[in-house]
């Protein structure tokens, strides 16, 4: 794959947010980071986790991601980097990987104290899009896309809910972990990416440069990051 925005030196690396690149919505997150002027980098090997300001674990299938993070030791590298101060954000499957408890199943990275229930809405017919105002993230309504989404059922001490919908929590955070059960990367909303970049101590383009919902985005925008065929 053509790796874009690869930081060239150590100093730059500390201003970079990595996106776990094993399966799922990797290009979508890289596209959003680029929109707010933040360096993004695909993370495929344990060494790639070193010196990142933050890491995004994207949407995808959590069972697949859980298997792949075990094989080459990326899971352990993420835990080590987290212990050294790296921030992490998980969307959908990423949130499942980060949870201390996955209801009825085994848990994985266990970096945020919460109970999460996989595929909690039903089949693809129950996937939906909506909007919500999440004051901590943006004063404006943000587009939310739920695809076979999980539900956060309980949060522990040191974890706060940023959005409660009916009987579940959709957004939660601790001092260094952010989780969303929906996919900001599948919408024009860049407010979460900006919020996470600031949480990581970075300075993204502000609201006067890129609106919280970027009008220049469309659902094919991720394709600019897709690899060029080798044949």
């Amino acid at each position, binding site marked *: *794959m053509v790796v874009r925005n690869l930081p060239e030196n150590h100093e730059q690396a500390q201003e970079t947010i990595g996106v776990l*690149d*094993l*399966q*799922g*919505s*990797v*290009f*979508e997150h890289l596209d959003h980071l680029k929109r707010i002027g933040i360096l993004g980098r695909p993370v*495929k090997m344990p060494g790639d986790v070193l010196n990142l300001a933050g890491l995004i674990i994207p*949407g*995808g*299938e959590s*069972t*697949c991601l*859980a*298997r*792949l993070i075990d*094989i*080459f030791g990326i899971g352990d590298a993420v835990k080590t980097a987290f212990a050294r101060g790296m921030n992490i954000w998980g969307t*959908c*499957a990423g949130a499942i990987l980060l949870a201390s408890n996955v209801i009825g199943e085994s848990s994985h990275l266990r970096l945020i104290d919460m109970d999460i229930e*996989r*595929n909690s809405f*039903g*089949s*693809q*017919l129950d*996937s*939906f*899009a909506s909007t919500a105002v999440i004051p901590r993230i943006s004063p404006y309504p943000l587009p939310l*896309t739920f*695809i*076979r989404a999980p539900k956060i059922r309980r949060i522990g001490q040191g974890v706060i809910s940023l959005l409660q919908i009916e009987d579940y929590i959709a957004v939660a955070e601790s001092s260094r972990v952010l989780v969303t059960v929906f*996919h900001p990367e*599948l919408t024009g909303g860049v407010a979460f990416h900006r919020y996470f970049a600031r949480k990581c101590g970075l300075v993204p383009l502000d609201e006067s440069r890129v609106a919280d919902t970027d009008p220049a985005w469309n*659902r*094919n925008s*991720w*394709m600019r990051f*897709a*690899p*060029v*065929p*080798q*044949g």
Partner: protein
Amino acid sequence: MDVKRYELNVQLAQMLKGGVIMDVTNVEQAKIAEEAGAVAVMALERVPADIRQQGGVARMSDPAMIAEIKKAVSIPVMAKARIGHFVEAQILEALKIDYIDESEVLTPADEECHIDKTKFALPFVCGARNLGEALRRIAEGAAMIRTKGEAGTGNVVEAVRHMRTMNREIRQLVNMPLEEVTGFAKVNGMPYELALKVRELKRLPVVNFAAGGIATPADAALMMQLGCDGVFVGSGIFKSANPSLRARAVVRATAYYNDPQKILEASMGLGEAMPGLEISEIPEGQLLAGRGW
């Protein structure tokens, strides 16, 4: 289907990118596939290799069997309807699976019309041998495309042909002057607006997986390097000597498709692959890729 629903369906396919979708015929196989890291399973009564061998009319699988598999796994479940058989698709939608494959592996029910997929809330994936065929299916409402390849052969040659054909036609579209697009679209049976979209995006406007003949980790990585977004493995897993081991290896090689060292490690000691078929030895009437248009 409204625009928002179609978008959600295209986006579910986006979530599967970089993953492997495996054919399974019972609960036990579905669990092996999920455990190995498949991003979805295709529930069907007979894998293509058996359909090919046993002959006869191949239809949608027994919904009871699909329902059992749906209950046993938490990853998305897909199932096949015959080309043009919109009532089989209605049944699958009523069953609330996650994705319908309008598939040439089953005996076509209609030689003139494919299913009008815009009438359904559930997403469809359809097979294609070239860009024109892919765009016709998208025009009918498909939310995801796969190469047809030649299913049930364990021979990747047709999948490679179809992928390279699509890549070549996309390059042609991107590089030609605008005034040539109308003629190119006409000759290749491409809806004009979609041809323009491909020209702008330099790729298909939906996720495109490889399918039909993938049997080894190397086959999967080959298709990924050729530019597909993920792979389907049909008979290749459960017709091999050690399905669990092979399933894991294909998942690994698909995720690390650009890393020869990782593909090497994934390829070691997997036992016998499924027996393969030479395409030229298959009687003309038994080739599946020519079904549908």
